[in-house]
């Protein structure tokens, strides 16, 4: 079953399959967040709305809205 990044629990890992929104996906890709990358959700923002991701040796903040368009394997 296809599920998206925002379904992951804190501390869980997932591998990116594809992006459901091409524009957001393209921007994520230019930052190095690519299909095939393994990402981990480290924490949520104190007031909600955004998540803190860890990937390889980098960390990113993205909005829940943006996480929704990241499809996982």
């Amino acid at each position, binding site marked *: 079953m296809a599920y998206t990044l925002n379904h992951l629990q804190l501390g869980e890992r997932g591998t990116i399959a594809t992006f459901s929104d*091409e524009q957001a996906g*393209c*921007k994520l890709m230019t930052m190095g967040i690519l299909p095939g990358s393994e990402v981990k959700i*480290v*924490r949520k*923002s*104190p007031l909600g709305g*955004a998540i803190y991701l860890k990937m*390889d040796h*980098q960390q990113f903040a993205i909005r829940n809205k943006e996480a929704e368009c990241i499809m996982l394997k």
Partner: protein
Amino acid sequence: MYNAEVVLPLSKKQTVTIALFGNPNCGKSTVFNQLTGLRQQVGNFPGVTVDKKVGHLKLDNGSKVRLIDFPGTYSLYPTSQDEQVVLNILTNKENTHYPDLAVYVANVTNLEKHLLLFTQIRDLGIPILLVLNMADMAKKENIWYDTKALSKAFDVPVVAVSARDGDNFPQLKKELIQLIEDTPNTPDLFYQFSKAEQELAQDIQAKLSIANPYQALLIAQNSGRLPFLNPEERSLINDFIVGKGVNRLSLQVREVMQRYDRFTPMLKKAIKRPDGVGPTLTDKIDAVVTHRVWGPIIFFSLMLLVFQAIYSWSGYPMDLIDAGFAGLGDWVKGTLPEGWFRDLLTDGIIAGLGGILIFIPQIAILFLLISLLEEVGYMARAVFMFDNLMQKVGLNGRSIVALVSGAACAIPAVMSTRTISNWKERLISIMVTPFISCSARIPVYTVLIGFVVPVTATWGIFNAQGLAFMGLYLLGIVAALISAYILKQLLHSEERSFLMLEMPEYRMPVLKNVLLNVWEKVKTFTIEAGRIILLVSIVLWVLASYGPSNQMELAETRAVAIAQQKNLTELQTEDLIAANKIEASYAGHLGKFIEPAIRPLGFDWKIGIALITSFAAREVFVGTMATIYSIGSVEDEGSVRDRMAREKDPITGKPIYTFATSLSLLIFYVFAMMCMSTLAVVKRETNSWKWPIIQFLFMTGLAYLGSLLVYQIFK
């Protein structure tokens, strides 16, 4: 694959333009500061308010270099104004900023994420030097890399440096000389075009006479937002794209994927990092700093520190500047012969210059702290934590810094919004920050609050005046947030808002970067906003010192006659002359002229004069009141209040400063845009008169309505 244009060898050019590119957080500005030091100017890229830093250096072969620091970006597919600037220039060879050479700065500890933009710029046929920055960090983390192998793989020169300590910069400069002296052959395209892309590029190359196929492809991809294309060219390009049956976004995705797919395996042989490391220092710090509870607590403590620093620490240097200019003014007054020139010099120019320089301590302190937080890597965390909250009112996590600093002074606060890359969010931050009660409003509040709330009144355990003060501050904050929300609905933006923020590793700040940033902000303010402030203060001086025909002289003679009649002391006489003169001046006439308009707010023409003169700065209200009520030589808040309390309406005989009038005046000062210096800075930061004018009308309009409402209810 294609022929490069025949051009003059770079070593023969008078100045070689070199552009500095790289992703955000690659240490590009540190490289720039290392290369240029103080020989740099900061301005805007044409048409936008995106910082353009240009530095100059001379290389050992005698070549003069103009080094342009471009905004950090991840690719040539822009999602913000800063990134758009890079694309605009790189797709247009006619642009004066189009570089002869490129220096690409990449973070070697994370090289596989830093090469997308590099391969794009390389494909434009610009000779490029790949600089692997943070070699010191790589060493610490036991990352092995082979510059020779990288150089061979990408067919470009490569040099590893550590910009933080200037390590290996002589080598970097040698490589630049090499690039200048023997212009290298254009390497083959890194990106392999599909058949449709090839045809598309060829069509555009032919029509627009463009030598480089990748440049043509980029123009095709972005034709709608490139300012140098005319409407015919745009529709022509659209026809090409429709004709080829391609989709712009899919092409982008394909290009980005293919580039990664090509260079990732190439890197495997040239760079190796030890695997299986535990949590890094950054992980450990973030576990606390972005924690649900600790994160916001730490943030607000830091903001309290920022506020305290601008509000209180800047007091000493500000007092010194104030006293220094007052002393200078007195000295000039005592030295030069009496006359209009002396008055222009002392009351117009010296007072105006003092009014500009007085802001420097606040600007310097705020930017010292902000640059430190930015350099360390903290600001990205603040944005992450408050993005959700600020989004609701159309602001950005970084706007909080502006709003907090605005409580001390709107000027550095407005300048601090430059780090917000989304234009709409930045504009809203600029527009609403002046609603936050700044320190210049305090003297006005102090004088007036006594007429609204008696000193002795209490409300529970609290002092009622203290509560009223707090209420005024809250009113400003609420006004800021509501206006932000309204502006969010009104302003339309092409830019889609993303968070997608890389959180850099925590690093020790580079002091040179911090100090250069502070210096640059102070310089920009003094020169660019300063000249507007000086001009307006001279105009205000003329308004207050001159009157129509000989009315000023008549006012003086009259005052002297009254003084003799009443046997006043010399000081009292001077005060009376000053009071009569300001009434006879243009400012006085203007005050009387606007009286019908401000009557419904409960204000008389005397308050009208104070409203006009306090446009120089809100605290001038107190001084003007002192002059009007002929106690100019005393001028402290207490005596001004006492004198105002005795002021009676000449017709009704009732006190002027009733509860209703005073409250109405307070409300007016909470909302009104009564600060030419802020407007000057907003003009500079939005690059047009449009926004400061809208801001002035909007804030002053709101002040008028608020005061009208309050006065009509309570009178």
